[in-house]
């Protein structure tokens, strides 16, 4: 079999069915990512503020937002007045414009 380098995913696609939960998980991540980035476009926010605004559990916002921080979409800002929560903001490297 002649394999075309850089385009090998199609060979496995023929043999391997993508489980439904994998595509559903991807949809969920893409959706929450969009929601979080949109919410931060207006102003910097803390995790409880984002959770309240988006109607998501705070732990879910924490997990997804920390993932977006790791992937380079978001960065940590100042602390709130009570010294309890950090504000998070869009990273100014152009990535968040997507």
């Amino acid at each position, binding site marked *: *079999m002649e*394999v075309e*380098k*850089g*385009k*090998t*995913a*199609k*060979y*496995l*696609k023929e043999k*391997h069915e*993508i*489980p439904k939960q*994998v*595509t559903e*998980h*991807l949809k969920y*991540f*893409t959706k929450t*990512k969009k929601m979080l980035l949109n919410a931060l476009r207006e102003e910097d926010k*803390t*995790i*409880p503020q984002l*959770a309240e605004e988006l109607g998501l559990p*705070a*732990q879910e*916002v*924490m*997990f*997804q*937002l*920390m*993932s977006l*921080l*790791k*992937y*380079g979409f978001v960065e*940590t800002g100042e*602390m709130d007045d009570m*010294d*309890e*929560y*950090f504000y998070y903001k869009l990273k100014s490297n152009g990535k968040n414009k997507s």
Partner: protein
Amino acid sequence: MNMQEPRKTLEYDVLVIGGGIAGGESAINLANLGYKVLLVEKDLSIGGKMILLSKVFPTLDCAACITTPKVSEIARHPNITIFTGTETRKITKKGEHRFEVDILQKPRYVHIEDCTGCQLCEEACPVSVTDEYQYGLVGRKAAFIPFSIASPRVAAIDIENCTLCGACERVCPTNCIDFTMTEEEFLVKVKAIVVATGFNLFDPLKIPRYGYGKFRNVLTSMQMERQLAPTRPFNTVLRPGDGKLPDNIAYVLCTGSRDKSVGNPICSQICCMYSIKQAQLLMGALPMADITIYYLHIRAFGKGFNEFYVQAQDMGVEFVKGKVGKITEKENGNLILRYEDVEAGTVQEAEHDMVVLSVGVLPNLGISDVFENEKLELDPFNFINQSDMLASPAKTSIEGVFVAGTASGPMDIPDSILSGGAASAETTSYLRRESL
């Protein structure tokens, strides 16, 4: 498995099973003596659990700074061949100094030798799943480098969660991603074997009354270890429940150790000291925080350990001799610990905003099942039995098979390294006997 190709046969002097700190120590000593070593590791990186730790007790040296030079020495040694993502399937003893081992290498979907670790695939991958190397605190991509100090520091594809969109290979500058890779089986002929399969951490889901998995601000000590490491998931120590900076943290010692009700009656030997270490690190990271350690007995038996314990007390860590019965959660995510105050003889309640469960050490089961015609005996707690513990601590029930590190029982890092050294010395002595 590709059935068309016959499996390859490889020959080495010694097979070391497990690439943690004990297996690594054995491999390096044997390689320095001129023996050809095959090191097989089931994970994507060598370095075991130690490479993921923050600092070590009682010196507070950086764990990564000790592990990474060692790991790179192992990786670059001309006498050591490393197979990651590889399982040992079957071991047959054919005679003295003659073992045949079936190993199975799972496809990484990345050609290790071509990957530069540029992370462009990671950036392109649209999938985000739970990062097991950060113990579930944050996400990772399906095309990913396991962690920044991994060895080899190259990408892997998590095929279970991959959508096969091909974005990773389109951006890969070296074309090292290859979805046509399949499992590979090898027959390995060796003269001796070192088993260094390490340990498992106790899963606190088995104690539902502590609320782990239900209350997000109840963490395991390994999750706290990640939060304190330089390659941590968050910018500082934060509550996973809502991102709050914690200021009142409790430790529950002996979670899953010295507890017959969960099937592990023995002491894990490391929990007291790593909790005291984390408490000291937390006092540095969060100067305003109160740290309380709920303990049954503090076992500070090693060199410098008691002084380390006293140092924590002097720094202001509160030690409460008490057995925690139950943890409940308040609406604000704070946790109520109901405990027996052993000294006062009363039942008390205390509120904390984060609870760390100091989870114990359990045997990593399975390796004894792969021996075909000889029995690798286990001790009453299912660790590998040391058949002559005082005279030859690395000896097992099979002549030519030696044990290193926590595969033989709970122990700390210096003892694991000593044990790895002992295993390499006893292996050498066994190999030398062949030529006599």
